């Protein structure tokens, strides 16, 4: 059995679980989840953009990168947790359809890439951060990380909205 089959079987099994049934049949649950999801993701994107703009040297250049990161990233992660939770619950209610939707798969891919981008930055690029943290231009790797992050997150929002139209066409 290929891994795709396992994923589809899992998705199919999900739809009859109590959680899934609740979200499917409740008059208000999906809408509430979607609302919190959108709120959370705007905070994720908005706060991460502040860090990315600093990496690109386009804003907050009067403050150290580490300080911007410290101010913003706790909000990014906190909001991401809510986005992930609400997204996961919505996913369970219609897993097969979400997995079958091209924009949803692209959204997952972009999320993965955004995570990888952040990891590479943390583990490699940011090693020498003391050299360029304050009052110095950010090295090319840092700029690329910022640009990639912005692009990927704009893509995530775009594919996310598109997914919404696939699930609820009217």
């Amino acid at each position, binding site marked *: 059995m290929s891994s795709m089959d396992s994923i589809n079987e899992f998705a199919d099994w999900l739809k009859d679980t109590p959680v899934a049934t609740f979200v499917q049949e409740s008059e208000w649950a999906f*809408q509430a989840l*979607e*609302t919190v999801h*959108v*709120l959370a*993701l*705007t*905070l994720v*994107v*908005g*706060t991460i*953009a*502040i860090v990315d703009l600093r990496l690109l040297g386009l*804003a*907050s250049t*009067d*403050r150290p990168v580490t*300080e911007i990161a410290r*101010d*913003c990233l706790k*909000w990014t992660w906190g909001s991401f947790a809510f986005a992930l939770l609400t997204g996961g619950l919505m996913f369970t209610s219609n897993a097969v359809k979400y997995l079958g939707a091209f924009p949803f798969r692209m959204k997952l891919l972009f999320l993965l890439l955004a995570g990888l981008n952040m990891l590479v930055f943390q583990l490699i690029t940011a090693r020498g951060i003391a050299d360029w943290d304050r009052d110095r231009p950010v090295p090319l790797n840092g700029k690329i990380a910022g640009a990639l992050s912005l692009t990927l997150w*704009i893509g995530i*929002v*775009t594919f996310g*909205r*598109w997914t919404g*139209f696939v699930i609820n066409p*009217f």
Partner: protein
Amino acid sequence: MIRAFCVWLAATPLSVMIGSTRWVVPMVQTLHILAIAVVLSSVLMLELRVLELAGRSQSVMQAARRFLPWLLGGLAVLAMTGALLIVSEPQRSLVNSAFWTKMCLLALAVTATLGLQRAQWRIVASQEQPCPAGVAARAIAVLTFFLWVAIVVAGRWIAYVEHG
């Protein structure tokens, strides 16, 4: 009267053109969401500075200089994308209690955000030393952020009121 305006608006060439393509509305909505991200995070950073939970290395004025232009720019994009969304489906927006609630909240939120900022600048200008914001200012900072959150909720609610 609003309905008559909606009927007229729906018949304009712009409205028809937007309605005839499948991708315009989703694209405009995506831009609307991205602008919300800019506005909401700017408000967050401004209020966190008032609460002294972020950006303490800079003054309230410096925080304002960093984030207010983005807040106002974001609002401009929201107004433009919002207008396009109204034009594309006039009745869905204008004959909708959620939409008007959102507009009221918006007026309140902008007033509160800018009002609090100006009050803080005046206090700072009149002090020799930097002084932490008082209880009232902190309360307004928290409430103002949640006002903006309420706007986003009301915005999502537009779709639900329309669809039942």
